[in-house]
């Protein structure tokens, strides 16, 4: 641990301090919220609350709304077949019209997963506070924004007041030194971090990711890492903004331009943590020691290298953990000691706010190119937004996937949480690039193994969990 210097502040401290409107006697702060992303599932009751109270939205221009959880990923020309899903999406559109909020409809090429479109549009900016009624709001921390998920009551609070009542989080620093080896990417990195600190390891903290391996990541890779901070219990993840961040943002439709751009960059350059800033918790990982990761259980912390085996519950440290492992293995239909590479799969899902961006699709396509999906496997690729889909098609990636036997779908959350028609049948086993392997997450009785896009593509081809390094990597 480095020596701390009095007055030195972390990236989190700086963003927090710049947004405190008021401090109550007990330390609860009124925190100003710069940006609010809204989707159809967690907002209807909030808008209803405003209507009942007769309140307007304080700053409609600070919000951006899109439907993503319920939208079909198949042909949309006839709308949404499921009545409840249709009502929820229509309700969002009506609420946005009533309260004056920008809304990307299902037919808009900019429509997509809320955490993909925020960055894509330049709505997500360094140094800002960003909330959304969605736990994966942590994604936006990749830009050095303090971004966290909130419940519906807090969605309403932000709509009405542009603030939230919050207490400061603790600072955690995760440093990843060295370089990621061949075949190992940001998803493997974040799964390894969650495996190391546990699914509640970051509770009460904001995690700042630092070190050479983090600096070397593209913006999209950084988003994958920050996205899964919540899977380690942290409401927010943060990466200091740098030239990579600025290059990504410059020219985006909602990013600042002209003089505003220069002033913004000058401010953003002041955000990185000061030398000697104090952290409540510090964790170090060596990037070179990380192998491609897969999960075996029903918590994102249940992770092993693809070269490993299903762990033995009897070797667990405590009773609660042993019982949880036994339950997971029963649910997953796995026997302790089975090599991960012997696990046969039925389905593959490539997409989600974790891995539905263009680089993810390129990575998967590099493995799929010239190969075929195994005959026992149904595989689908769901781009994270209409613009990602457009870009992928311009590069011919859709043809690579289609020729290999993958389905090529319309953008949305899809089988990450299976609110639309895309879901696993009971007992089906899926290699998935999403973020949660909870019981029933991808469909009641469905079995999820989390992994990177290239690993999912390799699994699709092999018909079982496979080591992408044997496929020429990505």
């Amino acid at each position, binding site marked *: 641990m480095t020596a701390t210097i009095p007055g030195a502040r972390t990236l989190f401290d700086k963003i927090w301090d710049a947004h405190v409107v008021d401090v109550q006697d007990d330390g609860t702060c009124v925190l100003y919220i710069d940006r609010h992303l809204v989707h159809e599932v*967690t907002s209807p009751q909030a808008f209803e609350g405003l209507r009942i109270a007769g309140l307007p939205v304080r700053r409609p221009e600070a919000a951006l709304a899109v439907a993503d959880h*319920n939208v079909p990923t198949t042909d949309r020309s006839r709308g949404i077949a499921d009545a409840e899903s249709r009502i*929820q999406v229509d309700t969002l559109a009506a609420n946005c019209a009533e309260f004056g909020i920008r809304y990307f409809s299902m037919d808009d090429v900019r429509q997509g997963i809320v955490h993909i479109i925020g960055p894509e549009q330049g709505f997500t*900016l360094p140094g800002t506070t960003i909330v959304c009624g969605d736990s994966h709001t942590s994604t936006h921390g990749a830009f050095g924004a303090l971004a966290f998920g909130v419940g519906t009551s807090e969605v309403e609070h932000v709509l009405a007041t542009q603030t939230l009542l919050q207490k400061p989080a603790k600072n955690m620093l995760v440093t990843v030194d060295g370089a990621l080896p061949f075949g190992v990417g940001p998803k493997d990195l974040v799964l390894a971090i969650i495996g190391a600190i546990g699914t*509640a390891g970051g509770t009460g903290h904001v995690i700042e990711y630092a070190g050479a391996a983090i600096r070397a990541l593209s913006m999209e890779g950084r988003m994958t890492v920050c996205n899964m901070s919540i899977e380690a219990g942290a409401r927010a993840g943060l990466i200091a903004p740098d030239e990579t961040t600025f290059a990504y943002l410059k020219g985006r439709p909602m990013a600042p331009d002209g003089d505003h751009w220069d002033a913004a960059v000058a401010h953003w350059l002041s955000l990185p943590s000061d030398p000697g800033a104090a952290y409540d918790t510090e964790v170090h990982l060596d990037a070179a020691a990380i192998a491609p990761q897969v999960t075996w259980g029903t*918590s994102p912390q249940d992770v092993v290298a693809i070269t490993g085996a299903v762990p033995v519950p009897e070797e667990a440290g405590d009773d609660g953990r042993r019982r949880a492992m036994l339950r997971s293995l029963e649910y997953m239909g796995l026997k302790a000691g089975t090599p991960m590479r012997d696990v046969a799969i039925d389905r593959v899902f490539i997409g989600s706010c974790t891995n539905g961006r263009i680089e993810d699709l390129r990575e998967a396509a590099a493995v799929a190119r010239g190969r075929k999906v195994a005959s026992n496997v149904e595989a689908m690729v769901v781009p994270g937004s209409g613009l990602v889909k457009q870009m992928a098609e311009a590069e011919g990636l859709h043809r690579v996937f289609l020729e290999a036997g993958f389905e090529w779908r319309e953008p949305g959350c899809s089988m990450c949480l299976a609110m639309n028609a895309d879901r696993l049948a009971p007992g089906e086993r899926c290699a998935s690039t999403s973020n949660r392997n909870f019981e029933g997450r991808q469909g009641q009785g469905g079995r999820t193994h989390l992994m990177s896009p290239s690993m999912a593509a390799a699994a699709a081809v092999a018909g079982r969990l496979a080591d992408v390094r044997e496929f020429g990597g990505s």
Partner: protein
Amino acid sequence: MQPFTNLTGVVAPLPMINVDTDMIIPKQFLKTIKRSGLGASLFYEMRFDANGAEKADFVLNQPPYRDARILVAGENFGCGSSREHAPWALLDFGIRCIIAPSFADIFFNNCFKNGMLPVALPNAEVDALMTIARRGGEILTVDLEQQGITCPDGRIISFDVDPFSKECLLGGLDEIGLTLQKAPIIEDFEQAHRVRHPWLFA
């Protein structure tokens, strides 16, 4: 919001760690545009079989626990999705207090917005309450003002709660209303913030 002062009721044991909000209320029930009626779907996949029939071995289907008002569970309760449907479902079922060694942050916050009290206690205290809960039909009294849980044998277990959250629960206070009283301070902040970061208001 309904105030939370005292709660006396049956305590049910759920000795599982990492109970996630997908377990508490699966996604197929998130399509509602209402807050009400979710109790019937609480813990759906653990509580009902594929045909919708009750699973006899699930705790809340067993006679002493069908009217449970308090739940004792393992660490990291409420992890995963931010869905406020999770506390709404518990509340609609009748559970207004959850006791566990630790909670996930978003779920923990969401409880307070709905007149519900999540209580974090050391493992030994949770184990003791779990043992009591397993006896079937035992009654606890949770006194928020005194910050104490009275066990059937009269022993009182004290707990911590954030003072502001306590005040809001006791008074059933509307946080939005409280914050709107600060509208002039928010206005002043916003103007200064605009001067410092004009690109955010362009």
